[in-house]
């Protein structure tokens, strides 16, 4: 096993008679081992200065997949997930940015349906993923996922369905990046995050668990999404829906920069209202502009 503890020196000195020369050799070996660069470097510093890392030496923040958050929620209790489910079927919009956002939104909704153990809704959402993927030319990448979602929902294999929704998100993003649609790929992640945050704040606001507030402490992630929009092409950046989302991110940013335990119920409600509003725009296409 790679991760097992190394058994350095185990039994060596107790099994063999100790010739003085062997002792000397062993001592030299130990000295070499514990003064070698490898041994020294394997004891990491207890504290480092992150400012020693220039921007080029820092990879952009790793966006969590929905199931990372739902894995925590599983441990916190059992809220009314059915009450969080969104009604209705979405139509595929013409605006590609909105399709990408809606696709992420629908995938996140899939996780809610899994938590609610609503097999029919899960299957419906699986089909919507396929339809929306078709709208941005990445249908092929999720055909198998869509089928697996249906099969696993029929078997009530909820863990399996979650894995398929996670996989669908990754596959769609991967396919978009292969098509050099990096910006749209980011919008898929953003759409998922917005719907996930809306649901999370609704649960926390409903008194499900104070520990849930902790999950909102995501300052770098919010800044990252803001930077992503900032680096998008002019046309996409000026898309009314995308601009509206950036506005929301900039309002949420200062709130989630607080430590999780410092976020007040009013702030949770505020994040909920902001994300709910923008998610409605994603679903209904009304940006109010």
């Amino acid at each position, binding site marked *: *096993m*790679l*991760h097992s*503890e*190394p058994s350095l020196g185990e039994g060596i000195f107790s099994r063999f008679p100790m010739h003085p020369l062997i002792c000397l050799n062993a001592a030299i070996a130990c000295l070499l081992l514990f003064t070698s*660069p*490898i041994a020294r*470097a*394997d004891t*990491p*510093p*207890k*504290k*480092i*200065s*992150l400012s020693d*890392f220039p921007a080029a*030496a*820092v*990879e*952009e*923040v*790793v*966006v*969590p*997949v929905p*199931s*990372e*958050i739902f*894995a*925590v929620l599983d*441990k*916190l209790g059992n809220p009314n997930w059915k009450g969080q489910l969104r009604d209705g079927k979405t139509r595929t919009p013409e605006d590609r940015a909105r399709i990408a956002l809606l696709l992420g939104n629908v995938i996140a909704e899939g996780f809610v349906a899994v938590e609610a153990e609503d097999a029919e809704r899960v299957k419906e959402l699986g089909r919507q993923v396929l339809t929306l993927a078709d709208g941005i030319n990445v249908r092929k990448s999720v055909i198998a996922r869509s089928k697996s979602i249906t099969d696993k929902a029929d078997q009530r294999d909820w863990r399996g369905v979650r*894995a398929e929704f*996670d*996989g669908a998100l*990754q*596959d769609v*993003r*991967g396919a978009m*990046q*292969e098509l050099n649609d990096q910006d749209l*790929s980011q919008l898929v992640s953003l759409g998922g995050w917005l719907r996930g945050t809306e649901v999370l704040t609704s649960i926390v606001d409903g008194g499900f668990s104070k*520990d849930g507030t*902790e*999950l*909102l*402490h*995501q*300052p*770098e*992630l919010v800044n990252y999404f803001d930077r992503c929009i900032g680096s998008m092409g002019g046309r996409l950046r000026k898309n009314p829906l995308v601009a509206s989302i950036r506005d929301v991110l900039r309002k949420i940013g200062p709130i989630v920069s607080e*430590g*999780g335990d410092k976020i007040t119920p009013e702030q949770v409600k505020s994040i909920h209202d902001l994300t709910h509003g923008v998610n409605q725009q994603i679903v209904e296409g009304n940006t109010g502009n």
Partner: protein
Amino acid sequence: MNFFPSLCLNFGSRKLKNRFALVALALAAWSPCLVHATVDDALSFAYEAALPYYKQGFSIRKDAWGGDLGVREKKAVSSQLFKGNNYWFLMATDLKGATLSVHIYDDNGNLVDAESWQKGRFAGARVSPKATGTFFAIVQILKSPEDRTPWALVYGYK
């Protein structure tokens, strides 16, 4: 994707049959979005390092991070981690004779490894965040026969 043929070369031994299974995992989990072709082989080794944790119930992320570094050069990979989850970060290189390390720090620069190990071309670190927030996986090449060493990093959670 070039790691599949390279890992099939010595398929005769039991060890490499295991490797084949690992490749299946890697293929299932591989995502092209953030990984360059030069680190494909390193990535297959990173998934190899992740396999024992996968068997322990950790979900291994399909995204991976990688590149190449000089000896003693460090890189930080920032991650949003959640209190309540356990995470394993696994790093590897395909370069024989190279050794590397990965350790996790919080956003104040404090070491937060719950445990870590380093074995040749593989390294791993586990973290159980005490608070939700941004964390940094600091990756480093400790020793290498080459100027630049390809590396890949994956992580799993449960």
